């Protein structure tokens, strides 16, 4: 395998690992703020118990996101020097704004959020929770602006082979940005709410029916049930936007090799990139055109119109189906559980098992969605400006293979440790009230020794 392919796999591995954690923290920050505000309003300790549990999960996820994010910022230079040389004038400021407006905010106030309860005034602790949530969201915003610009560039001109910014408003408000930001923020909301609902259901099934656990489960279920229809709508709008700006990506998602009118909706198929045909296709006639063009006879352009400029169909086609399938499953499970809450005031055991099984469903859907959009823009790194292969650096393939192996080993290990630790936290008895067991008081030790997240 050549160095470019290895670098691509390495970056894909890194960014896939990274996105798992922001996908949780972006929305979990807002859920924590909600829990804190409920506690402030009601003074009911159950809200604070839920806060204290989930702030630990937040801290752990945040740390995982930070370390993998730092790694990524270095890989731009180590593996993709051509990227910054060509579009650095645009990517640079966007990345810089992320660091100065978001990174410092979240990293600094995280300390107050984790360690400040009881040490700083309570209002300040609430404010810190808000600022951390705001920081993670702004961070996501800038990164998605950059990603969207790479998919649908605007507001620039090429001088001397290098992109120069001509209109910053057009760069930031590029055509796919509003759709991508909405889609990703909702994806984070779903990832976090299914995690909260699923892990709480797991705790309840193991016999922990303390009020904090039940509150968290309820919050998770209702957030998920509210967001999933919005996400399906947002996804559809994002798809139509993509059809307009990156038709070859949609052709790959829908399995359309040749331009056709009244195209069927391929429910399943196994696209064969070598022979440019679909095997084992199962399709509903005309539905594809109807969904994408809102007309029975609408024309959908196939990959044949984009010779040498389109992505491989198989991974895009499959990833898209995994994402949509997971979305449907999320809709069913969250509405089932919400209905159960609504009718009986608590969740039924089968619904709780379904929630527990869906704990990490947001991860699967988010990754599948990102694979769809990122593989779907190949062979371009920046549409029409820079091909992926052109951006790769001179590092020998053997060296990249070594670093790839190292990263994969580290990531696999950390993922296991992360999930294992979440399960461990979930199995510990819930904290109730200020003098909870499992958090021993050590009054003899000085300040630094008594900093425990969430205390």
């Amino acid at each position, binding site marked *: 395998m050549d160095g470019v392919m290895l670098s691509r796999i390495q970056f894909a591995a890194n960014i896939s690992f990274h996105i798992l954690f922001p996908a949780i923290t972006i929305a979990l920050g807002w859920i924590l703020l909600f829990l804190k505000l409920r506690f402030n309003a009601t003074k009911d300790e159950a809200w604070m118990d839920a806060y204290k549990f989930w702030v630990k999960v937040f801290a752990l996820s945040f740390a995982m996101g930070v370390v993998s994010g730092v790694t990524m*910022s270095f890989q731009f230079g180590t593996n993709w020097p051509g990227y910054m040389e060509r579009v650095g004038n645009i990517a640079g400021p966007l990345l810089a704004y992320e660091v100065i407006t978001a990174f410092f905010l979240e990293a600094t106030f995280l300390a107050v959020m984790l360690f400040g309860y009881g*040490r700083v005034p309570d209002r300040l602790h609430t404010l810190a929770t808000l600022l951390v949530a705001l920081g993670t969201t702004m961070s996501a915003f800038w990164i998605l602006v950059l990603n969207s610009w790479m998919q649908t560039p605007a507001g620039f001109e090429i001088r001397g082979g290098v992109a120069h910014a001509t209109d910053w408003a057009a760069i930031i408000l590029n055509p796919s940005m509003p759709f991508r930001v909405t889609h990703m923020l909702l994806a984070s909301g779903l990832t976090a709410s299914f995690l909260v609902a699923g892990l709480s259901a797991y705790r309840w099934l193991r016999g922990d029916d303390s009020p904090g656990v039940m509150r968290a489960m309820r919050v998770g279920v209702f957030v998920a049930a509210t967001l999933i229809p919005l996400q399906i709508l947002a996804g559809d709008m994002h798809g139509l936007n993509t059809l307009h700006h990156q038709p070859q990506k949609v052709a790959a998602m829908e399995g359309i090799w040749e331009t056709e009118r009244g195209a069927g909706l391929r429910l399943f198929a196994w696209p064969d990139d070598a022979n440019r045909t679909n095997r084992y296709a199962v399709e509903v006639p005309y539905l594809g055109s109807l969904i994408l063009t809102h007309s029975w006879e609408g024309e959908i352009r196939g990959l044949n119109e984009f010779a040498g400029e389109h992505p491989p169909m198989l991974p895009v086609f499959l990833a898209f189906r995994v994402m949509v399938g997971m979305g449907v499953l999320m809709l069913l499970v969250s509405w089932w559980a919400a209905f159960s809450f609504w009718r009986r005031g608590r969740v039924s055991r089968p619904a709780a098992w379904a929630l527990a099984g869906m704990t990490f469903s947001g991860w699967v859907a988010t990754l599948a969605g990102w694979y769809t959009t990122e593989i779907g823009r190949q062979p371009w790194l920046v549409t029409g400006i820079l091909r992926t292969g052109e951006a790769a650096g001179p590092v020998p393939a053997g060296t990249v293979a070594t670093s790839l192996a190292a990263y994969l080993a580290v990531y696999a290990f950390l993922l296991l440790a992360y999930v294992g630790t979440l399960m461990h936290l979930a199995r510990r008895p819930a904290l109730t009230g200020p003098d909870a067991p499992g958090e021993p008081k050590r009054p003899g030790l000085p300040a630094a020794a008594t900093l425990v997240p969430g205390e």
Partner: protein
Amino acid sequence: METLPEGAWLPMVFAGLMGLAMLLYAVLDGFDLGVGIMLRAAPEEAERDRMIHSIGPFWDANETWLVLGVGLLLVAFPRAHGMILTALYIPVLLMLVGLIARGVAFEFRTKAPEAQKPRWDLAFQGGSLLAGFSQGWMLGVYILGFAEGWGALLFALFCGVFICAGYALIGASWLVWRTEGALQERAVRWARIALILTGIGVVAVSLATPFASPRIMERWFSFPEILGLAPIPVATGALFLVVFLSLRHLPRRDAALDWVPFAATAGIFILCFQGLAYSFWPYVVPDRLTIFEAASAPESLLIILVGTLVVLPVIIAYTVLVWRWFGGKAQALKYY
């Protein structure tokens, strides 16, 4: 005098900002990594907890300075960014693995099952050591202008050890400042050892750098520049003496001077950084690429600068606030 190219102020400002971010990183995450390097030298679990909790509220923001420093290199000097990072591929990889291990160990050691805690302590220490070592390695490679061969590698590895010693010194000084009792006494002993190793390192690197590059030799030892530059090594020596003397008299019962070794060590870091910056100016890739040749388009630099000038004071303000909230050895922290 060298004449500066037209519009040179923007790259200069960005070189200054980048340098500031890197320096702040070296001082701030330096003490975090230093504490990590010494973690398992403390025999008791309770002491290790205290060491880590002393840096817990700060480390995350501290590491962000590295992201900003590399980010500014990336955005302001994209060509240099590519050249430097591809040349430093292996040490960058090692540093990242180290930072990953250290960063996640913070959380895992208190949240994973109790039986795993010693292993996460090991990851914490190993990660800190690896990160510090590879940063020193990078510094060494950079000083020698990316020269290759066994001699250069040996020098780079020496710099790795030396940076670890420097981090251990500032980490131990931090613990002298922020802890008390048996742990503080231990930290004083660690600081004494680290001081000797750091002193050897500073002298060795200061002597080696001029020999590595005739340009740097000329820059430091030509007349009359040498008169203006003499205060740097003199002040560095004086600060070493301050650390040495204060460590002899610490810990004191009134704790009033506990901050002295940390402040003096931070001063040493600043002066060493100044010396290096002077040696390499105006190059961003030594002897190959100046900051003026490597700079991004002015319109892009300007838009970053505007944002930075607005946001940086805010960042500094809330950083100072958080330092005050988590300051001192406050005895009376209430469990709510």
